[in-house]
């Protein structure tokens, strides 16, 4: 299992608009990715309710995981980069 741990950069945390943009990006990947906080419950990255249930605020470290292999690695890189950006910014 490939993993990336990244701190949520969005000022508003991972909810509402930032969460929606993240979930939409995860849906487009076509590779199943999961997300969790610490050692908490894993939820599918493409589930809005799942992502909201994490309660991640700005600075919360979340861990993304996907199957090993180039597709999984690329998906993790894309989603980790998204989380590291301020998704609240108008141009995000």
């Amino acid at each position, binding site marked *: 299992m490939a993993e990336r741990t990244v701190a949520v950069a969005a000022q508003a*945390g991972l*909810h*509402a*608009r930032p969460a*929606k943009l993240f979930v939409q990006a995860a849906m487009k990947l076509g590779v199943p990715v999961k997300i969790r906080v610490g050692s908490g419950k894993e*939820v599918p990255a493409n*589930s*809005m*309710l*799942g992502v*909201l*249930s*994490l*309660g*991640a*605020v700005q600075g919360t470290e979340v861990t993304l995981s996907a199957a090993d292999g180039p597709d999984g690695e690329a998906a993790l890189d894309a989603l980790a980069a998204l989380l590291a950006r301020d998704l609240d910014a108008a141009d995000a």
Partner: protein
Amino acid sequence: MREVLEARAVHLHEKAATREEAVARCGEVLVEIGAVAAPYVEAMLERERSISTYVGEGVAIPHGMSKEHVLRDAICVLRFPGGIDWDGEPVTLCIGIAAKGDGHVALLAELAEILLDPDRARTLREAPDVEAVMKELT
């Protein structure tokens, strides 16, 4: 969630022709119970236009971004038995949210946790009376 939901903020027999009407109704109820000032309703509509607040399971969570109009943290629960076309998704339950500061993140997490359980989500969508909703959410 017990401290943010009161029985008079639960309405089970609402009607709305459009998503905008439904969001406005949620806003009106939040104004009625003294949780927000009137301009918050427009902020909710604006937020909804910028990105849909549909979260899945037939539920939308309208809220505004103008925290200065929030008088106290509260939620309202409005059910639309006839359903509303929410940008292509059928919605029967709207949970309007008013929150200052970061309070809404924990609140949303708690709500999401409930809705992730299909049985509890169904109970909410089909609750026969206000008491049943209160019991599920508080």
